[in-house]
């Protein structure tokens, strides 16, 4: 009878949730659309901005260089640079984006005679994409000029090019693509799963508790023979379903969006960084996040039950987002690694473990400790939720 009643409550809550536009938006639409918009939309926007900055010739100004006419002349002829001569101060011109950069050529650069090794100075607007691109072009020009000069000097003295560069340095990755993925984007997936587990559970948790109070259906259901324990368990299962569906859709959507974005990048540039994340790793992240979703769902139900209205519930639950985001982000910080003590810190432990799982590292002791401790926290949260549903002062708070 008990499982039957829980199933009846769950089915009814599911039916209502599927008919509620707000639940459908928060649980299904947002996770599906968020990542294509973020990755593909923003990604393409950024890519096109960079492309535009790359294509557009940059207006620059030359300071000095009277005794280096050849240098100035090649700079003027240089592709994608337009040298202008303005009477105004170059700092103002850069600040007002009239020109993108200015270069100061030290005396005696061309002849090399009497040069006091004063540097070539490039003045720019830090943080501005077009100014940074212009400065890079000027720097590339002078790097090339310097290399040519050095090569000429070496050949005049009949010395090989290796005289100045006796050996090369090359970095070589020795770990698998999965491990690279774990270190680079490994922190993002657990963060995403954790945040989406929370946001997916938020709206249904409020709707099923404070929403019921607001719509005056709480007393209706309390007058039925279903026990309060079965009632809260049926509601909890629906909130948990919403939480997991949101997280699953988010990760799927992110995977598809990243694949599409990478595919287009491959086609356009020919070069791409391949990040490989196995399906098994993503599934184990879900498995580890399951007790966390249980904890979130039960905790949100309990908190929202205190509220008399949907609005009040929102004001209680919003700060919870920060409580969850901080440990979830902490796991992404470089140098934060799983220790026995951190294994007991809720949210942070799951986030760190997921990072390891994505990288293909399985420390079974940590996995067991974190899974069990999170199950314990989840169980405690359900216990509190059931207790709260038995308290008249909470159900009938006025």
């Amino acid at each position: 009878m008990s499982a039957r009643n829980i199933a009846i409550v769950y089915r009814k809550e599911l039916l209502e949730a599927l008919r509620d536009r707000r639940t459908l938006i928060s649980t299904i639409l947002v996770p599906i659309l968020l990542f294509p918009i973020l990755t593909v939309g923003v990604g393409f926007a950024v890519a096109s901005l960079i492309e535009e900055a790359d294509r557009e010739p940059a207006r620059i100004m030359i300071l000095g260089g009277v005794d280096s006419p050849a240098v100035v002349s090649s700079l003027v002829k240089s592709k994608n640079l337009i040298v202008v001569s303005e009477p105004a101060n170059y700092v103002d011109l850069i600040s007002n984006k009239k020109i993108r950069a200015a270069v100061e050529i030290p005396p005696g650069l061309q002849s090399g005679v009497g040069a006091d090794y004063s540097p070539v100075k490039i003045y720019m607007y830090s943080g501005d994409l077009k100014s940074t691109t212009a400065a890079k072009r000027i720097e590339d020009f002078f790097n090339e000029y310097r290399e040519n000069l050095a090569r000429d000097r070496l050949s005049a003295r009949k010395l090989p090019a290796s005289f100045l560069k006796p050996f090369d340095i090359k970095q070589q990755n020795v770990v698998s693509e999965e491990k690279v993925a774990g270190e680079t984007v490994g922190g993002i997936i657990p963060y995403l799963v954790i945040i989406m587990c929370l946001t997916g559970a938020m709206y249904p948790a409020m709707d099923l508790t404070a929403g019921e109070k607001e719509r005056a259906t709480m007393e209706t259901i309390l007058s039925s023979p279903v026990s309060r324990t079965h009632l809260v368990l049926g509601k909890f299962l629906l909130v948990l379903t919403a939480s997991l569906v949101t997280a699953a859709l988010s990760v799927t959507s992110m995977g598809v969006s990243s694949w599409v974005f990478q595919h287009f990048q491959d086609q356009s540039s020919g070069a791409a960084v391949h990040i490989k994340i196995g399906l098994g790793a993503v599934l184990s992240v879900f498995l580890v996040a399951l007790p966390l979703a249980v904890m979130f769902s039960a905790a949100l139900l309990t908190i929202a039950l205190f509220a008399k209205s949907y609005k009040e519930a929102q004001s209680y639950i919003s700060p919870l987002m920060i409580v969850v985001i901080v440990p979830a982000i902490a796991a992404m910080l470089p140098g934060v690694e799983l220790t026995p003590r951190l294994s007991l810190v809720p949210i942070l432990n799951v986030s760190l473990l997921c990072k390891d799982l994505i990288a293909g590292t399985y420390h079974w002791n940590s996995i067991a400790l974190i899974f069990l401790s999170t199950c314990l926290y989840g169980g405690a949260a359900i216990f509190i939720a059931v207790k709260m549903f038995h308290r008249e002062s909470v159900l009938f708070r006025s």
Partner: protein
Amino acid sequence: MIEARSLSKRFHDKKRGQICAVENVSFTCQPGRIYGLLGANGAGKTTTLRMLATILEPTDGTALVFGHDIVEHPERVRSSVGFLSTATALYPRLTAQEMVEYFGRLNGLDEATLKKRIDDIFSRLDMNSFRDRRCDKLSTGMKQKTSIARTLVHDPPVMIFDEPTLGLDIMAARTIVAFIRECRQAGKTVILSTHVMSEVEKLCDVIGIIHNGSLLAEGTPAQLREKYEEKDLEEIFVKIVTAHVAPHIGVEV
């Protein structure tokens, strides 16, 4: 039958401290009769009925509802009771039929019995034209009928009505009044709370006057008229209530 035995309910309020909403209330409601709990706002009517429906637990005392103790077996009590009040709204996103089915299933009805009962109730209450319409799209009258169908689906022997016509228009209120009469004719035990004198006159076989959480007087309308030497029930009510020196303040919760 309902048998309330020294029912009391106290609440703790942050500002006002301990509040006694219902104090030592005892009465009996017989099958086939309507018991009217008459009182002003805040007298303790809703709290008493919520205790009988096991939505609230009594602080002291108990009651037997259809032979089940409200403290010992609240779930059995709820299976025997149909509870209707203005605070028992419908789920807006369910259709009228889904709403009634939900409560039928929670009352343990199997699918075949449930279908038969729903067909029967929907025909009797003339609800077939809107059985597949969502509750948030129903008129007030349709909502009332759906609420009635919800309370009737498991054919409970006891009906509890908490100010059932409060805020309703004349037509919707008449539907409810007719339904309460039908319950009496069907031999059900009916208890109803109200502060509308005309409703009491029309419906109640026995009246209990409650004030500040205490039951001050009880009897048939004829008995009360004789005892207080007044024809008008409203005058009788005022006479009883003003004569009572309030030892404490009752509140509705």
